[in-house]
């Protein structure tokens, strides 16, 4: 790993000013993606601003059906939170299957969505739930937040503070993990929200996480795995690589969508 300067921020405003003062700063939360990336010399930030200890970025609350998850909340905390299990078990179960136990003890929801890896799980959940991402500067809807592969609407030095969404009537995630890396070859989060059925796909699209309009239309008013059977999922726009070609991924998307809907 190249040299870097480490700073521990104790508040969101301190993190923002540390980032502003840095040449080429990066926010560090659990570090489960960033540190391996730095070890591989694929990133070399001049400064690391650790946000993991900031109180207002930690914890989970459920108030009047509104779930709020602090950006620095770990996957293990999300997976094990009793109030969240009740309000939206789909998200807790998703978190319980990210990486491995040691990674879940450090990796955070904010880090995952800020990185927006196309094979990450959380972006699909947030998009399907119509979540709102709150930063130090503004609120961004998930529809606007996820822009493309590893790309988000975040500005330089913008810090995600929390994520919130309305508890859905139903929500479930199904993924087909790559047998070696365990990252999603295709993952589908299906949710029945007050705005209707919403379906988001991770791991498969060549432009990152996306919503599947035809599946959403099919599920509106007919929430069943059978409704998915009638939807055709084309290979256009699917990732194609050594792990699976576009047609295979298209098929997986449909199968995972069926499993997600059947699962809740």
């Amino acid at each position, binding site marked *: 790993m190249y040299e870097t300067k480490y700073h521990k921020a104790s508040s969101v405003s301190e993190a923002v000013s540390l980032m502003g003062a840095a040449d080429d700063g990066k926010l560090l939360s659990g570090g489960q993606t960033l540190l391996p990336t730095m070890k591989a010399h694929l990133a070399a930030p001049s400064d*690391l601003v650790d946000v993991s200890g900031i109180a207002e970025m930690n914890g989970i609350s459920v108030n009047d059906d509104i779930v709020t998850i602090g950006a620095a909340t770990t996957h293990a905390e999300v997976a094990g939170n009793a109030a969240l299990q009740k309000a939206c078990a789909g998200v807790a179960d998703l978190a319980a299957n990210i990486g491995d136990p*040691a990674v879940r003890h450090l990796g955070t929801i904010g880090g995952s969505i800020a990185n927006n890896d196309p094979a990450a799980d959380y972006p699909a959940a947030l998009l399907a739930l119509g979540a709102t991402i709150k930063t130090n500067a503004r609120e961004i809807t998930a529809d606007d937040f996820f822009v493309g592969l590893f790309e988000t609407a975040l500005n330089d030095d913008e810090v995600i503070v929390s994520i919130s969404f309305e508890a859905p009537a139903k929500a479930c995630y199904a993924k087909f993990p790559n047998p070696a890396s365990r990252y999603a070859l295709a993952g589908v989060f299906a949710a029945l929200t007050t705005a209707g059925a919403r379906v988001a796909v991770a791991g498969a699209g060549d432009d990152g996480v996306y919503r599947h309009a035809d599946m959403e239309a099919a599920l509106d008013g007919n929430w069943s795995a059978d409704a998915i059977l009638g939807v055709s999922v084309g290979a256009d726009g699917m990732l194609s690589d050594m792990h699976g070609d576009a047609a295979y991924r298209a098929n997986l998307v449909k199968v995972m969508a069926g499993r997600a809907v059947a699962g809740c």
Partner: protein
Amino acid sequence: MTEVSMTVNGKPVKADVPDNTLLVQFIRENLRLTGTHVGCDTSQCGACVVHLNGKAVKSCATLAVAANGADVTTIEGLANGEMHPMQTAFKENHGLQCGFCTPGMIMTATDMVARYDANGKELTEAAIREELEGNICRCTGYHNIVKAIADGASKMASS
């Protein structure tokens, strides 16, 4: 350089380290506790697992400076005059061959037993296999590791 201080295996330690020092480097090179291993460069093998404030983490994917003030337990901190029940279980069940993965396996195992205990959940064979997702062994084929962890869990419960 930043001064870090933490408690490792119950003893306070302190050192000046470059900010890019990994926790595993600090443990192995500064503290000379070489029971914690490095088996990969990609956070996949789990040979480096230690407990950070009571939770299993990969010390190759954690900065030493970020562990400032923390309480760390390594494989060397488990035995207390005699072997920890999980270590005994690995020995009795032939849960290791070359032993390279073993420190990480045992730190992962004691963490999973503690978590399942705290949540009142049963640590079934299937659960043990799931929980070993982040630990790779190139020798044993895992069956005896799984047996050792189940045995270690019951030894821990009765000790």
